[in-house]
């Protein structure tokens, strides 16, 4: 009786500490989370690691401890519920238990649940650093260094980090997990100057160019010879000027890799933009960008000078494929347009020639909620791969219209923003091609769109089971019935220690849920990879905004390896 009373008091205490505890009225406060933190590479126990837990639904209620010499940690007297488990230490970035970013396995505490003697494999930080020199072995002091990584599962290239050289000719990317990385450097020779004959006038700022950049302090000589009229191409480790020839850096757990880059000056290209402005007091502006890995647009630090009769001349462009963003003034209005072109030698753009034309996009947004759209509602079209986007405000009645000059035809997803991103459930279009939930616009003409917003998204709570028991750490994928053009219908999660998972913001429709053990290296976006798993998946119909409970059988990964694997030895 007395014991019960004590337990009851602890429940009261826990309830006072955590509002979450109210949801688990019957909680018996005897749960423990214990385990050992080990080095993911060697399996050696790690002492002095900070380990913390917090209720999965109340992350600011943190309890912290430090591992002992044997790498052990223990949290006692826990209420029933799920806890996220996080560790970090010197040389080990913060990481969650069984993390496959952004997913991890939470620990479920309760009767019959395995929350003790966990093995927490901590992946040591790796780093990539290096120096950047020019062809004369001199330090390149100013420039941007970009770090890309290839997603082990999908093979997609992602920009992970960006650093400046900061006067030292050196860069450092720390706290890196194992993976495949690429390094690219974008810089300009410090001594670069435009050729004789170019007008000597103050530099204009370029769109996308940091005008506070140190280079703008340098004298801009009005003369120079060909040796100074040079630029650097975007250069990849190791000394490659095209992405295909870039050398991947296979970074293993805890590895400190070095990747030095040498930049070589090449004759610069000059781009003349004709008819940029009709008013000398309102000069237009030009921003030149280059694609890296066909995706990320990075600015080229060119030098823009006004030329005769409303033109602009941009010097310092390395030869290659560029995206030119123009802001032109016609005497009445400003106009933004983008051109994409190859510049192998000095080139010209005439902004008055509507070489690509503009597409006129108009449409209506239908909302399930009554009443006008609040001010600030915005429709945005974006490309998942290149991160390019454009859009227009939506009126209170849901109307939008605008003209867009497209540099190339590509596939766009649609979002309606306000106050958060509202999910677009249905797209109908005339004048544009709709595949799944994506749009492909023509270069010109008129496009009529009807966008229907979702009345409410559903949620799926489920459990991954094998022989009736919950399976931890499985990759759970919500797969739409039609795989094409529906990238934004997919949802993923990682099963927690009791096998449970949750999929949020599920757009109503028919799906198959698959749970794959050791599946984190599978290209889950690739229909061919996914198809074999679908027949053992669990189909589910989500009719509306409710919460749907399912259980999903665990499947083993069929062993198709991805390009590179996470260190999990």
């Amino acid at each position: 009786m007395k014991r019960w009373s004590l337990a009851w008091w602890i429940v009261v205490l826990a309830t006072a500490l955590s509002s979450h505890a109210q949801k688990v009225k019957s909680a018996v406060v005897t749960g423990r989370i214990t385990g050992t933190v080990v080095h993911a590479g060697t399996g050696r126990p790690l002492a002095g690691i900070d380990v913390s837990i917090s209720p999965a639904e109340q992350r600011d209620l943190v309890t912290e401890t430090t591992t002992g010499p044997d790498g052990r940690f223990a949290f006692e007297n826990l209420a029933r519920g799920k806890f996220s488990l996080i560790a970090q230490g010197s040389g080990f970035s913060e990481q969650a238990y069984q993390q496959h970013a952004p997913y991890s396995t939470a620990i479920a505490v309760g009767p019959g649940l395995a929350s003790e003697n966990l093995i927490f494999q901590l992946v040591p930080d790796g780093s990539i650093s290096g120096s950047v020199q020019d062809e004369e072995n001199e330090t390149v002091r100013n420039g941007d260094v970009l770090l890309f990584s290839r997603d082990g599962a999908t093979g997609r290239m992602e920009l992970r980090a960006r650093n400046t050289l900061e006067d030292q000719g050196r860069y450092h990317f720390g706290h890196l997990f194992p993976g495949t990385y690429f390094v690219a450097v974008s810089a300009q020779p410090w001594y670069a100057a435009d050729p004789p004959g170019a007008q000597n006038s103050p530099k204009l700022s370029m769109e996308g160019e940091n005008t506070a950049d140190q280079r703008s302090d340098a004298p801009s000589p009005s003369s120079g010879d060909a040796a100074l009229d040079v630029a650097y191409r975007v250069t990849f480790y190791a000394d490659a000027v095209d992405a295909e020839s870039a050398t991947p850096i296979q970074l293993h757990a805890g590895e400190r890799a070095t990747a030095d880059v040498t930049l070589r000056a090449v004759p610069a290209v000059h781009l003349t933009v004709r008819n940029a402005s009709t008013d000398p007091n309102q000069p237009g502006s030009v921003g030149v960008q280059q694609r890296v890995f066909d995706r990320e647009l990075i600015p080229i630090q060119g030098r823009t000078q006004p030329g005769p009769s409303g033109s602009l001349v941009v010097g310092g462009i390395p030869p290659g494929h560029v995206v030119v963003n123009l802001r032109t003034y016609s005497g009445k209005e400003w106009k933004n347009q983008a051109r994409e072109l190859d510049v192998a030698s000095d080139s010209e753009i005439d902004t008055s020639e509507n070489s690509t034309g503009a597409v006129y996009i108009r449409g209506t947004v239908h909302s399930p909620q009554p009443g006008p759209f609040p001010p600030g509602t915005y429709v945005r079209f974006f490309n998942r791969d290149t991160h390019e986007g454009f859009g227009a405000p939506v009126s209170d009645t849901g109307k939008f219209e605008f003209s867009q000059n497209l540099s190339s035809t590509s596939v766009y997803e649609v979002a309606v923003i306000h106050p958060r991103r509202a999910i677009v459930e249905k797209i109908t279009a005339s004048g544009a091609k709709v595949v799944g939930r994506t749009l492909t616009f023509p270069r010109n003409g008129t496009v009529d769109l009807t966008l229907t917003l979702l009345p409410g998204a559903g949620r799926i709570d489920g459990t991954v089971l094998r022989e009736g028991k919950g399976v931890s750490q499985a990759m759970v994928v919500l797969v739409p019935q039609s795989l094409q053009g529906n990238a934004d219908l997919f949802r993923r999660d990682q099963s927690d220690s009791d096998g449970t998972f949750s999929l949020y913001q599920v757009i109503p429709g028919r799906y198959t849920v698959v749970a794959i053990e050791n599946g984190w290296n599978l290209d889950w976006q690739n229909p061919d990879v996914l198809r074999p798993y679908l027949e053992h998946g669990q189909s589910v119909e989500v009719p509306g905004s409710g919460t749907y409970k399912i259980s999903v059988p665990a499947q083993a990964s069929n062993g198709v390896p991805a390009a590179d694997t996470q260190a999990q030895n």
Partner: protein
Amino acid sequence: MHSVNAKRPSFSSTAVGILVCALTLAPALFCQTATDAPALSTRTHSLSGTVVNSVTGEPIRRVMVQAAPANGTQMQSALTDSEGRFEFSGLPESDISVLAHKPGYFSTADLNPSDFQPETVHLVDDTATLTLQLLPEAIIAGHVATAKGDPIEDTPIRVFREVISNGYRRWEVKGQATTEEDGHFRMVGLMPGRYLLAAGPNLPNLRAVRSRGVRKEGFGTMFHPGAPDMDAATPVALTGGQQVTADFVLKLEPVFQVSGTLVGFPPGAGVGVQFTNKYGEVIPSPIDVDMQTGKFHGAIPGGSYILQARGSDSTGRLSATDLPLIVSGDVEGITLPLGAPITIPVNVELRPSSNSPEQLAAANFLPAREVAASSVRLISTDVHIDNVEYQAEKANGGLAFRNLAPGRYSVDISTTAPWYVRSARIGATDLLREDLVIGSGHRAEPLEIVLRDDGARLKGNILADGQSAGGWVLVCADQELLTHARTTLIAPGSGFEFVSLAPGEYKVLAFDRETFAALEFRNAEVLAPYLSKAATVTLHPGEEATINVERQGTAK
């Protein structure tokens, strides 16, 4: 013959490592006759030379050298070769300004932009040869670790350079860096001079500090070498090309939460809250302000701080509050009233010595008062970082200081002869003898300035080893603050003259240029050893006195 290159708008003096000198290509004076004149304009000249490292004397390769003819013809640019050589040909007959620059090096123009005089070379031949010098940058590199030797990442490192200007000593922020994963940092591009280095603070983020159940510890600020604050720190002296190591060991200390509410800021105003120390240095510690509710929440190690709130509305009106705060535990529920902007009206009164009606009428004429007191400034004397000063501006038919921040200030009044400052007071405070202290809730008492025109004139010479010499002369009234001392620079062979000095007793000192440039003479402690050798003079109204002063300092 000086050819100052200020005519060339394309040069920017802020660029790293620019060396400017001007020379004249003038063969016409020697070998051309009037009959050859038509050929003259097509006659061209060449110029070659070498750029060397001024510390090692070694040539520097790949320096950008630019030759700009003063006659407006095309500037030429070239990089030096592997032996540091450059050559220009086809230069017109004109004054030629030559610049050299390279990242990592400084020119004399960079090192002393205010007192820079271009070198002048007069050429008599067709080809000129020139040696240009560049000073290599100094570098500070170091490591930040715990007592156990674990590197501390993401620790802010700040470098301050000592600047002595007009007798005031300041520490200017010259660079910031952050330690890398391995605790290392590196600061390049430093000029010769004296530097202070600070590491930290490195504090957990606010989310962590506000989480329940987490130890709240962080690394505080430390000045090199192991000093808790700026006063106790030892400056590092850097010379050209020097590489210095500065390591820090930081200790974990408790971090406390400081929270409260800002009140009294106008709707839509921008508001910032920050911690500073007594030197005026902003502590890079996390602090959050909710613009809607005025609630703020910050985290900081224990210590003594000033909690500053600054607001500005859409018209740019500032409101400010400074709250001195000793933090030794969590501080909650602070109410920070954002006061109305601090404004001090300035009244200038002219008291002519003659009581003629014309004089009196003229003295009451506003423009006359504005001319007499040509500038009235408040210069911060408690902030050691950078330079904080305010200028009184015209407002509502008079002068006023607006948007003042709380602090300690010295009043600086420039007058136009024959006027001198007879008195400057705010209430009972005599600002010729005391600093002005402005608190958060400062009442708008006016600054009353009285000017008179019966000042004395003091003339004289500087003597060095019994000979007349050049240098700086400083006069200070016996009873006044050194912030009111007046100075003048004279060339060798000429005398000095101060006009419109208030009657009274004065100390007169003379210094060589080098000593004076590095002398914090507005600081009584610093000037004390020199004052014993000062000349003394008593000036009466309208008097003209003459005095010779022995030059002090180290230079020959």
